[in-house]
């Protein structure tokens, strides 16, 4: 299972970077999305793919019974998804504004500040 996920993560990173290198602001955004998804899935995978009990402490015990699924990676991913969502919304607005202002989707056409 983790081998499969490793391949998926690799594909996400590769296609993300490929998209970012295209001559298009829209594809640049898609690339960023794929990159952040790859990072999220990576946290999920390295956090351990154990099919375990919920991490709830039973009555009378002081620790959850092993094996239990680690909830922390999921909490991290949730936080990262929320942040990623906000950043993505901002980037979309910025890139749309740039598209309106410059009338082009190609980053190479935006030569104004950086000769």
């Amino acid at each position: 299972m983790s081998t499969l996920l490793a391949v998926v993560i690799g594909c996400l990173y590769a296609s993300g970077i490929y998209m970012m290198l295209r001559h298009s602001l829209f594809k640049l955004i898609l690339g960023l999305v794929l990159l952040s998804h790859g990072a999220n899935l990576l946290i999920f995978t390295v956090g351990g793919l154990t099919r375990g009990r919920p991490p709830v402490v039973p009555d009378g015990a002081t620790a959850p019974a092993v094996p239990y699924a680690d909830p922390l990676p999921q909490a991290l991913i949730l936080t990262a998804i929320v942040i990623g969502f906000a950043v993505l919304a901002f980037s979309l607005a910025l890139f749309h504004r740039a598209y309106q202002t410059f009338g082009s989707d190609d980053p190479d056409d935006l030569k104004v500040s950086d000769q």
Partner: protein
Amino acid sequence: MNNILLVLPLLIPLASAAVSLLAWRRIALQRALAVVGVAALLAAGVTLLAVVRRDGIIATQEGGWPAPYGITLVADLFSAIMVMLTGVVGLAVLLFSLASMDRGREAFGYYPLFHALLLGVCGAFLTGDLFNLYVWFEVMLMASFVLLVLGGERPQLHGGIKYVTLNLVSSAVFLAAVGILYGLTGTLNMADLARKLGGIEETSTVTAVGMLFLVAFGIKAAVFPLFFWLPASYHTPPGAVSALFAGLLTKVGVYSLIRVYTLMFVGDMAFTHLLILILSGLTMVTGVLGAIAQDEFRRVLSFLHIGQIGYMTMGLALVGLTDSPSLAILALAGSIFYIAHHIAAMTNLFLMSSVVRRLCGTFELKRQGGLYQSRPFLAVLFLIPALSLSGMPPLSGFFAKLPLVQAGLGAGRYAIVATALAVGLLTLYSVANIWAEAFWKPLPQDATADVGPQRLAAGETTPLLLLPVVALAAMTVAIGLGAEPVFSLATEAAEQLLHREGYIQAVLGGPA
């Protein structure tokens, strides 16, 4: 009491941002609130520094859970110094903003964003947890994204796209590195990580993760070869914003590098710190050569800024490349001193570029001139941070480079010492070039079409505009003349950083 001190640098900007948002339409109130809020932040930073210096490292676990499960906030001397400097830069740039920011930007949330940026920066300095560091980075980045493009001018949008893209890539790398580290150790508390990483057999895996952090923080710190977003964006927003960015943002990257490479990734220093040393040298050289090739005021400063980052990482690199503890302390103290000196000088230079722009109507050095004749005071004032940047005694830059050079000689790394000295000389050439173009040469005739000498004489500077410039110049002189107490503070901070057990014990408790 200590808990409150650690939380205040976060609460004050957060509350200021929230109240400013509520007072959206009342700009005068926002301006007044900004002064109170940032002054309070500076006061909190100074108090924090005083208490940490007296009592040693202080830490607190928010949320009622013991370490390493609670939300750790920790301040050692290095953090406290950085928080205090954040307050200094914040206040200086805020006063400058009050005098220079246009009504349009003020009406669209300049002040709430200003507070949010300070919040993110202070959070990054005070957190004791790697994932929270990521979150604070995002808080800081989000505020900086909006500040950078606020106003929506064409150059801003163009610079903004590059800035946003590269910083998001850096965040993705950072997040991946955090995830892998959690998989390796099962913890993200920095003190806990420091303890557990030492016990991992496969040092190569740990080093690989360390390299991911080097890339992530290297992009933020604008280290060679990851600095391209900086000269593409720093010259596009209003002067106050670029001064704020120059003062604080890259320093957060440098801070994070120093933190993780003194606390956590110390297993294979012969490799990691040598790599940082090479990158430092290349950063210095490319930065200063880039500066010489430019002829737009703020672009010159952007490249000089990059060159200076190399000095800060040089101290960190030398720590891992010497066997003598006293040399390591000297090198790291040099880095910390350099950060303090650089924040004062660089913020000031960016503010000055904005003053010059007001007087000459352009940032293009070729079309500027005549300021020595019309504004001799300003011309002399500019020389203070400019000469300090190139390391001229008795200004702060000299005493910042001195320990780095001494440590480099002591460690037998003569190549980096030669590079550092040569780059200092080239920096002098570059700032002298700015001075000759903007101040010394007469105002070019063809430039008088839109701005004439009469405008120079009319006086476009207000006392409020010059107050932060004078104050930061005074700080540069003070750090230079009073180098001894500042340096002993930096030395104490470096000793704390290198005494890892002290940090671990302060956060996790337990026997010393």
